[in-house]
């Protein structure tokens, strides 16, 4: 006998998950939340420099500088899926382009930003060529060696780069009409550049280009079959990513007013990669969180144990990865969603 579990035999059931007549497309609360966060951030960003001590303003400026570099790295690693352990090199090239123009040609400093971006774009485009053939690990290690090679190279061309002594510059003065202090002025410059680049990247990702990058990250073969020209997108992703890191380098030169080969060792590249992974690969606010990580966590580490700050920093880095294996942005997102769910339940 057939064992009937339902009394009535129903007509063929609909497929399990997609209901036939769907409700209006799901809008995740996340999206609205993101706009709210953005608006809040803009307000905070504009008010902060008038409320904080100059030193704190300087720190925030540096957070923005790193965030800008991480924005570029995120584009490459998080969105296009190519690992670079050499982004410190692009940061350096941007910083040196700006510094050399200021030192040797007395160029107006604002002009050095587009110049640095142009130069790093070109270099990134050239170095993007190995990226065409190499994947993951291999690309990461080759880029790392390139970053290491840059240091002696900078020392070699002493007349231009100042050799191992580097170049000491002076910081740009705020125009009188602004009434701003120097730190505030630099902060707003960094904010403007970072925000503009952030918006541009945001737009970029929400277009055919962004989707193509994501596609080649997820499945190269399928992407190519759908018409994505891998060589073009990979090299351009590399170049754009380098360009953003270069922009960060130029702003760094304005803020720190000093460049030397020792400022851009492999440590910087490694910190940048750690920053973006900690911040959250492929997430909107990951670069900002990563920038904060790069700036504040080493300080925190030496606050805990001055005898061996490295021990604390290493432990912190590992712990963060335990708690947030997909980055702080993901963690924040999860916490946010959890909160929303809690509220709904009530």
């Amino acid at each position, binding site marked *: 006998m*057939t064992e*009937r579990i339902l009394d009535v*035999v*129903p007509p*063929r059931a609909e497929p*399990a998950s997609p209901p036939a007549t769907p409700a209006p497309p799901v809008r995740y609360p996340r999206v609205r939340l993101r706009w709210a966060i953005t608006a809040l951030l803009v307000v905070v960003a504009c008010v902060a420099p008038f409320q904080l001590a100059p030193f704190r303003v300087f720190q925030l400026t540096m957070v923005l500088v790193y965030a800008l570099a991480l924005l570029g790295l995120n584009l490459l690693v998080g969105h296009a899926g190519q690992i670079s352990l050499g982004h410190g090199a692009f940061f350096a090239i941007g910083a040196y382009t700006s510094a050399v123009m200021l030192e040797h040609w007395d160029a107006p400093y604002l002009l050095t930003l587009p110049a640095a971006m142009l130069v790093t774009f070109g270099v990134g485009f050239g170095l993007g060529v190995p990226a065409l053939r190499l994947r993951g690990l291999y690309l990461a290690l080759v880029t790392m060696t390139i970053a290491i090679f840059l240091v002696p190279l900078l020392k070699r061309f002493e007349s231009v780069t100042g050799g191992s002594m580097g170049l000491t510059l002076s910081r740009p003065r705020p125009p009188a009409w602004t009434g701003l202090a120097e730190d505030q002025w630099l902060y707003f410059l960094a904010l403007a550049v970072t925000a503009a680049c952030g918006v541009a990247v945001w737009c970029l990702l929400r277009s055919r280009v962004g989707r193509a990058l994501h596609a080649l990250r997820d499945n190269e073969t399928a992407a190519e079959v759908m018409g994505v020209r891998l060589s073009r997108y990979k090299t351009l992703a590399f170049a754009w990513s380098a360009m953003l890191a270069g922009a960060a380098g130029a702003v760094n030169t304005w803020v720190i007013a000093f460049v030397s080969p020792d400022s851009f060792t492999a440590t910087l590249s490694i910190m940048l990669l750690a920053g973006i992974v900690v911040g959250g690969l492929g997430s909107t606010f990951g670069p900002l969180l990563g920038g904060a990580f790069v700036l504040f966590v080493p300080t925190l580490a030496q606050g805990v144990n001055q005898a061996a700050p490295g021990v604390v920093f290493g432990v912190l880095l590992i712990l963060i990865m335990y708690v947030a294996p997909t980055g702080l942005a993901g963690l924040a997102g999860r916490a946010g969603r959890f909160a929303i769910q809690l509220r709904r339940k009530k």
Partner: protein
Amino acid sequence: MTTLLTVEDLHADYGVGKVLHGIGFSVAEGEICAILGPNGAGKTTLLRALCGTIRTGGTLRLGDVALPRRNPESVARLGVAHVPEGRGTFAPLTVEENLRLGAYTRRERAGVPRDIERVYEYFPVLKQRRGQAAGSLSGGEQQMLAIGRALMSRPRLLLLDEPSLGLAPMITRELFEIVRTVNEEERMTVILVEQNAHLTLEFAHRAHVIETGRIVLSGTAEEIRSDEQVVAAYLGIEVV
């Protein structure tokens, strides 16, 4: 007939929403048990729950031992072999290495080369490809490899998730014959998830129909096949 597998009130989810809502059935030793149901019903999830790869609630027993939770290694060591959806072959390893890995937990090693030969007899094309990286095989060849690999462990319970997927009609038939052979000769118990309900019911002893995570129908293969109304409603096939 002794009961090999007991499933009671099994629940499972992927962290977003429940997929199985209290499934209960048992499989006798030496039985071929078919699980049927539409797309997305939860058949694959059921097998994953059995072999311990996902989170579950409820009771699972193999013979007298409770199946360990979330620990597929131990489940496998109890003699459960799983041919998963998507096959799970080791792409960079050769065909033969894949087969040898199937016998990884076997204590007696002497029979391994013989069993490899037996798999080659079942699927001669694998023998031709023995030194080739598994990832370069055609879809159907990979499917054969996955089945062969599962047989290599000489399991007590064999879980097959849509084994005929991507196989040519002739091979599909042969495959079912092979399942019957190992079932009869080695008293290997088999749980078979299939879309090809017609063919499956020809070979299975018992069958359960799942919809949206619940068993809606159970019976011997004969019973289910002979109830035309049921077959048409649930399985959408005309009885030949």
